[in-house]
């Protein structure tokens, strides 16, 4: 075992995949200068040079389009979007092009594009640098979406994304970038579409997305002795490992979904829909979603905190579901 940060896990995944496949290159704003703004491409320039680590101008639509054309002609791009908010500048290449072309071309073209975008609330960067758009992309057929919440998953999911022949959006969390965790020595991958039971419990299932996994685990620990909480991190939203979630619901009979994105039309609603479809008869209480406020994220630090689920609000919501 050794210690590794979330940011270094991202670097390691890219370095390892670049070493085994010459078609893998990394492209994005500032990625080539000093390991990038958030140090997520550190070590790549020294090892692979400017041919395979390409800093771009501020032109998201162009370099995401470039990734589509590169993937259609034999390469395996990894695109870094500096903030997920900026991905909106590239909706056409993502939603109209890379998500559709493998299908529209009758399967002639694969689309091995990995889009890395960082999201998350908690760094006081206000409404245009704090958004969580996972539901928008999970809504688009043809895109896979994952949200690593641990160092282990940050590396393992990214490696799987780079190896996947279709477009995968990896939503990284910037609050976690410099968090350290113990990880194995050797290589590992985490398959897309496989949830993790982060904590075993019997009274209620909490499905937490991204960074809320940590808060849900803390809330569960706080409730220990009062309520036995099972915490599931789906890790991938598309494909979604409903088997693991449904097995948990059949055991606990109760569901709370937690995410930072606004509750309205959020991915929590989608999980609730699946649970109602697949295990309605096992439910002992109405399933609930605790998401972020249906508001742009305010700047003021105290207001920012109030807009997203916190350990105490999660604990309260768990109590309500179990009431």
């Amino acid at each position: 075992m050794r210690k590794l940060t979330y940011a270094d896990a991202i670097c390691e995944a890219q370095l390892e995949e670049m070493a085994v496949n010459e078609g893998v290159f990394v492209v994005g704003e500032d990625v080539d200068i000093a390991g990038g703004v958030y140090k997520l491409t550190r070590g790549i320039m020294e090892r692979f040079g400017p041919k395979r680590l390409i800093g771009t101008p501020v032109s998201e639509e162009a370099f995401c389009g470039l990734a589509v054309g590169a993937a259609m002609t034999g390469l395996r791009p990894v695109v870094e979007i500096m903030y997920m908010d900026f991905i909106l500048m590239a909706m056409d290449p993502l939603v109209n092009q890379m998500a559709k072309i493998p299908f529209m071309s009758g399967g002639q073209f694969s689309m091995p594009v990995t889009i890395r975008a960082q999201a998350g609330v908690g760094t006081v960067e206000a409404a245009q640098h704090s958004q969580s758009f996972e539901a928008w992309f999970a809504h688009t057929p043809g895109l896979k979406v994952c949200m690593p919440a641990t160092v282990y998953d940050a590396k393992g999911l990214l490696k799987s994304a780079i190896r996947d022949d279709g477009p995968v959006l990896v939503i990284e969390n910037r609050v976690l970038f410099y968090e350290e965790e113990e990880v194995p020595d050797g290589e590992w991958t985490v398959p897309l579409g496989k949830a993790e039971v982060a904590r075993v419990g019997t009274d209620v299932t909490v499905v937490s997305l991204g960074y809320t996994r940590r808060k849900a685990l803390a809330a569960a620990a706080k409730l220990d002795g009062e309520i036995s909480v099972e915490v599931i991190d789906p890790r991938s939203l598309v494909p979604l490992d409903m088997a693991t979630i449904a097995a948990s619901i059949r055991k606990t009979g109760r569901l709370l979904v937690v995410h930072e994105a606004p509750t309205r039309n959020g991915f929590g609603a989608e999980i609730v829909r699946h649970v109602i479809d697949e295990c309605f008869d096992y439910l002992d209480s109405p399933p609930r979603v605790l998401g972020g406020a249906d508001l742009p994220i305010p700047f003021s630090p105290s207001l920012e905190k109030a807009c997203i689920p916190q350990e105490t609000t999660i604990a309260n919501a768990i109590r309500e579901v179990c009431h």
Partner: protein
Amino acid sequence: MNDLTRNQKCEMFRRMVTIRRFEEEVKRLYRAGEITGAIHLYIGQEAVAVGTCAVLRDDDYVTSTHRPHGHCIAKVFDLKRTMAEMMGKATGLSGGFGGSMHQFCKDKGFLGGNGIVGGGIGIALGAAFSAQYRGTDQVTVCFFSDGAANQGVLYECLNLAALWKFPVIFMCENNRYAATTPVEKSACTKDIAPRAAPYGIPWAICDGNDVLDVYRCVSEAVSRARAGQGATFIEAKTYRVEPHCGIIADERNKDELTTWMSAAQDPILRFEARLLQEKTLSADDIKAIREEVEKELEDAVEFARQSPSPTLESFATRRSQSYA
């Protein structure tokens, strides 16, 4: 053009006639209900697709538009599978999953039509990047129109293509209309090609209804691209004879239409007159070519009609492969 052989000119003429007749046939079949959907015809612009693709090799790349039949026939030249795709059949270029706007052919470097105006520009940038990355001398031609010339992505891509010396040719087919809006109402300058100048990209304007002028202009651009000298922007002045789309009404000035369809302007009649005048082809040769095209087109329509529709099973297979 001294460097073109008789056979090459003959083939260019054949492809232009093929595109024209294909489009006329599509129009007929659309009206008869055998082809459905959004159909954008290329009639009047044949010289641009043919003059451009005649310069290219099979392994060069082309990105096309929502009006892709002409580009597809010029680059891929598979009438049967193109017509089958128009009818949504399993034997179509895209297996019936793409239709008129989404013909693809990986083997011939045809990176697809595109339902989004300007949607192919970034893809062309990527294909050009890819050739440079892999160290090949393949070039990419990006077809777009006066309509797409007003999309922001073009200017992001011009900057990158110039910055990184990509082997790409921006081929702007100024067919004078974006849907129903005339170019005078949408472009602040008479010519579009000079917009490349501030990026340091060489630009040229050619007569898009003269296949040899298109060929000459594209030849220079392709030579530059293959030699590692970067991008070129070409504006081909041409005219879209048909309305934007099968179902959209269009208010066109009759004189304008008459002028552009006259023997002095129509790209096929012009090329035919030239071939006759320089005695490259005789009237009999031309008659024979036209008859051969008719036969091939008939076969293509029959092939498409007889072909099976894609099955739900093929859909399910595709879905499980690409769509979790």
